């Protein structure tokens, strides 16, 4: 007891030293002032807004810039990045983002494996991009918002994929699935009042499970095969039919040529005959004879073996070499 009393007395005896006291007071004032300034002014950067609470109760949201608040922790501020687009990956993880993004080799089948409406299994990988739409709701309504987004996204994606066929999911419906999942996620998150705005849901790799991949590839091959077969047949068709059409046209043209030829010849022959006949009808007998003689001379001149038999002879008689006979113009003239 005495010991303690001595200590206090010793302490009190020292206090009156004015200079020391002054230093202590100044130091306290400086510290308080520092704390005061530190807890009065705050800046909100361009990407964020500040959410201010007075004794824990929400009072206001402040925009980017320099602001004041009641110091010493009576008012506190939480800065929330509202313009930044955040994203989450499902079924895969980006290990090193960059120009050539490196993906983690690990697979997250429990996230990506899902059932389609025709009770098949498909592996869907997707990303969700979102931002904080309502900072107040984001801070105060839902605990563990990021976890909630993951849960909601997985549930929504399975609802959307569950209403589609494996073929639809793998081929034509990717865009719709993303859009529908976006709407569904937004609807659920709004119901929770999470203050999250889904920007987009984008499907990444959508594949059949590894075990059935070869079968799916075989279908694609068969599809190619089908097209090849049809194309080849078309090629054959296209080679043969135009040629046949050309040939047919040629045939018709030839027939037309024949027709023209026939008719012209007939007309020529007829004209010739008629004009001949006209002259003939003037001097029938003479013309007849002349024609006969002319022809005979032509005929006889070209035949090499000619036999002229006297009508009175009984046996075959060789007379003159008929060549000479044919050559004699005097005889032809005699015929006239």
């Amino acid at each position, binding site marked *: 007891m005495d010991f303690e009393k001595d200590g206090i007395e010793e302490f009190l005896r020292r206090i009156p030293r004015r200079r020391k006291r002054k230093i202590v007071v100044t130091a306290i004032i400086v510290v308080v002032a520092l704390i005061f300034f530190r807890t009065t002014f705050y800046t909100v950067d361009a990407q964020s807004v500040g959410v201010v609470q007075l004794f824990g109760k929400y009072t206001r949201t402040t925009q980017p810039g320099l602001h004041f608040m009641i110091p010493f922790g009576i008012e506190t501020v939480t800065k929330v990045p509202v313009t930044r687009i955040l994203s989450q990956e499902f079924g895969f993880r980006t290990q090193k983002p960059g120009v050539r993004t490196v993906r983690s080799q690990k697979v997250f089948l*429990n996230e990506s494996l899902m059932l389609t409406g025709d009770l*098949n299994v498909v592996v869907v990988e997707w990303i969700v991009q979102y931002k904080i739409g309502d900072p107040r709701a984001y801070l105060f309504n839902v605990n563990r918002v990021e976890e909630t987004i993951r849960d909601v996204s997985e549930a929504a994606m399975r609802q959307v994929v569950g209403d589609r066929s494996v073929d639809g999911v793998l081929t034509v419906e990717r865009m719709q699935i993303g859009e529908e999942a976006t709407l569904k996620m937004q609807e659920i998150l709004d119901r*929770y009042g999470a203050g999250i705005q889904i920007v987009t849901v984008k499907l990444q790799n959508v594949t059949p499970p590894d075990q059935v991949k070869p079968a799916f590839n075989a279908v694609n091959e068969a599809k190619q095969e089908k097209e090849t077969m049809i194309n080849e047949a078309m090629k054959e068709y296209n080679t043969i039919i135009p040629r046949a059409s050309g040939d047919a046209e040629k045939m018709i043209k030839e027939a037309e040529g024949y*027709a023209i030829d026939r*008719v012209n010849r007939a007309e020529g022959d007829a004209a010739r005959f008629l004009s001949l006949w006209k002259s003939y009808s003037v001097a029938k007998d003479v013309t007849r004879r002349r024609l006969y003689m002319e022809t005979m001379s032509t005929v006889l001149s070209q035949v090499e073996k000619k036999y002229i038999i006297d009508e009175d002879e009984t046996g075959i008689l060789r007379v003159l070499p008929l060549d000479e006979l044919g050559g004699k113009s005097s005889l032809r003239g005699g015929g006239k």
Partner: protein
Amino acid sequence: MGNIKQIIIAVVGLLAIFVLFSSFYTVDQREQAVITQFGNPVRVVIDPGLHVKIPFIQEIRFFEKRILEWDGRATQIPTKDKKFILVDTYARWRIIDPLKFYQSVSDELGAQTRLDNVIESTVRDFITENPLIEVVRNSNQVLVQSEGEEIERVDVVIQTGRQKLTRAILAKASEMTPAYGIELIDVEVKHINYVQSVREKVFGRMIAERERIAEQYRSEGQGGRSRILGDMEKDLKKITSEAYRTAEEIKGKADGQSTKIYASAYKKDPDFYSFTKALESYPDAIGKESWLILTTDSDFFRYLKSVR
């Protein structure tokens, strides 16, 4: 004894500060509180901000006001159509009655255990009462089929669908939670997967289905080719026969026309025609190699013997 006086002032001052601090408390926007007095709850504080209580004898317990997480384990459940699936659900809940909550489950950990029982059993009940398709599908939206598929598939008409089912699970489970001061906000099925053995079978079926589709493509290819080649054969025949017909028609018409021309000319003097035609044909008919035996009686040679 100024020293003792000063000590008393200091002690009283400290005490006053201590009393002051233990009479005021703040409740965060994210929290709500239950005030207990000697362990007995006396008041619930929902509003955030600065509040007053009796120092020392009243204590505060804080509870979350935000929506909280509940994540179920993947449990194996058979569906009504005897398909074994792994169902993984999640729920969101919040404390609506902190007093009841405090009295019945005391804290979040206790609540999680209680929710495990409530939600898991409700989910199990609903899944086992419904065929798998009701859990997987949401609506009767028409499924896109691959182009090659022509085999008619009778689309299963679903009665409830996943969304209505989860709504029903939520409604049913919600009947039990108010007793714990808990409001269930949502129950959703996060994952459904076939159990390993079923999955193998499903993969087998998928492979068979793909093989069928591939086969169909192949036969469609063959069919397509045959169709085209058939068309080709037909078109070819049509083209050639039509050409033949047209050509023959043209030729026939020309023949007819020429015959008519000849006839109209020759009928003027048929006898003269035969005469000239015969004469015309002799040079052609009788060639170099022919043997010509004529008598002097013929018109041509009769002058060999006499001029008469």
